[in-house]
């Protein structure tokens, strides 16, 4: 059971894991859904079931509109982006197919791909530069006649490097292959349009940049995706075609078996509206880019610190990593949390391939990630604490050793 706590002050730099705090509108929408739309969506026609169905339909429209898709039924909800990625990869790929991935992929992609390898699917990593960004010219040469899918981690969850999705989309279309984009870190932080960015499968999570709750996510299917060729990941009741024991073939029911997360999707919808409201004319994104620029500039001044970011600031998301010479990342994170109230994430971030690419495997990094709500004051506090650690780690480590 969670008990209410009142810590002195939290400096939250783990938005890449999940955004916090959530906007009050998200919490209110979820509470309202539980109170007023408490039926089971798509099951039955009574008022509470209708209300639940409407909440989910509104969320579907909101997601479709946010990502530039003109058909809300091409949005299939899932419980998280890992499930979304699995849905696409396991549903689409057949023995003999070849897949290209960026060197910055998360295990959400690499583990299903490794499992598919045992079923006759082959894969290769796209050539890249030092920061993990794909070398477009060299990438073209990797495409084979068996290549079926290209998987792109839009923004790295380790160093924040953003991949040139549109250019990769052009490459995919020229070659007649499909492109899956993992927007776990990028959605909500930068404009993404499934049509103009030439994306075929847009996998998203609700609980990071979209400011919704955990347990939400899904796939938006682009207009040229052959839906009939994609097997469902999960089979079961949909509230439709109930006379048949066969799975319905149409969207979204083809991919949405079982009771949907009505309260969660109400929260996701409210989160997306919050992002849209706060990002009119791109102002939220501009502020966030500016914050990141300040953050990087300050960290660069710290001695004994290695910084892992995109080589080009224009291709930098709101995630970065650091290591401090001769200092254990775990101990540093523990001290930042317990003594300074600064919450970060250390280790390999479920992305061992990305860390190998950056040369930080197996010890990993300390990851710092910001949100639209992060302030300059919070960034300065974080930098000051990291500076203390980096300048005189012995003091901090001694404090650690003396702890009971």
């Amino acid at each position, binding site marked *: 059971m969670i008990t209410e706590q009142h810590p002195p002050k939290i400096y939250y730099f783990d938005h890449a894991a999940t955004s916090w705090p959530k906007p009050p509108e998200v919490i209110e929408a979820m509470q309202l859904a539980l109170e007023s739309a408490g039926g089971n969506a798509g099951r*039955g*026609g009574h008022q509470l079931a209708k209300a639940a169905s409407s909440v*989910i339909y509104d969320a579907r429209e909101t997601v479709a509109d946010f990502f530039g898709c003109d058909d809300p*039924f091409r949005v299939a909800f899932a419980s998280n982006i890992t499930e979304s990625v699995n849905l696409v990869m396991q549903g689409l790929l057949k023995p003999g197919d070849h897949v290209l991935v960026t060197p910055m992929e998360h295990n959400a992609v690499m583990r299903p791909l490794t499992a598919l390898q045992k079923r006759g699917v082959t894969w290769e990593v796209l050539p890249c530069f030092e920061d993990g960004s794909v070398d477009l010219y060299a990438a073209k040469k990797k495409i084979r006649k068996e290549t079926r899918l290209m998987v792109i981690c839009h923004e790295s969850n380790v160093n924040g490097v953003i991949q040139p999705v549109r250019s990769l989309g052009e490459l995919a279309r020229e070659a007649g292959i499909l492109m899956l984009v993992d927007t776990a870190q990028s959605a909500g932080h930068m404009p993404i349009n499934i049509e103009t960015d030439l994306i075929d499968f847009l996998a998203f999570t609700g609980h990071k940049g979209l400011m919704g709750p955990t347990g939400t996510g899904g796939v938006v299917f682009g207009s040229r995706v052959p839906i009939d060729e994609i097997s469902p990941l999960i089979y079961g009741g*949909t509230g439709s075609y109930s006379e048949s024991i066969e799975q*319905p073939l149409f969207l979204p*029911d083809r991919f949405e078996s079982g009771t949907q997360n009505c309260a969660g999707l109400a929260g996701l919808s409210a989160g997306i509206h919050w992002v849209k409201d706060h990002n009119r004319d791109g102002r939220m994104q501009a502020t966030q880019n500016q914050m990141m620029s300040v953050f990087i500039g300050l960290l660069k001044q710290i001695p004994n610190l290695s910084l892992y970011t995109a080589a080009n600031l224009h291709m930098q998301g709101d995630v970065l990593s650091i290591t401090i010479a001769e200092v254990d990342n775990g101990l540093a994170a523990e001290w930042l949390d317990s003594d300074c109230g600064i919450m970060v994430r250390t280790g390999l971030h479920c992305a061992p391939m990305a860390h190998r690419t950056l040369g930080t495997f197996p010890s990993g990094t300390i990851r710092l990630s910001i949100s639209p709500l992060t302030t300059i004051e919070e960034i300065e506090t974080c930098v000051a604490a990291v500076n203390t650690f980096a300048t005189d780690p012995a003091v901090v480590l001694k404090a650690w050793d003396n702890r009971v």
Partner: protein
Amino acid sequence: MSDPYLLLVFTTSHAIGIQKKLEKEGIHATLSTIPRGVSSDCGMCVRFDGADLEKVQEIVDHIPFEIQEIIPFPKQSS
């Protein structure tokens, strides 16, 4: 007001989508439980006034998914 009609779809999501579309086009439509005698589906259908039948047909012809059928509302009382 004419006799009501039911627009039957394959899933509740489609019912809501069509109902919203009809309302947007100025046609009053409501979500309704599917009579058991009509379908064994667990979900909903769209009910509208028969006077709007032609307009509804035209709209349905341009939506990006299939519907089951449009039928006169099966009255249960004589």
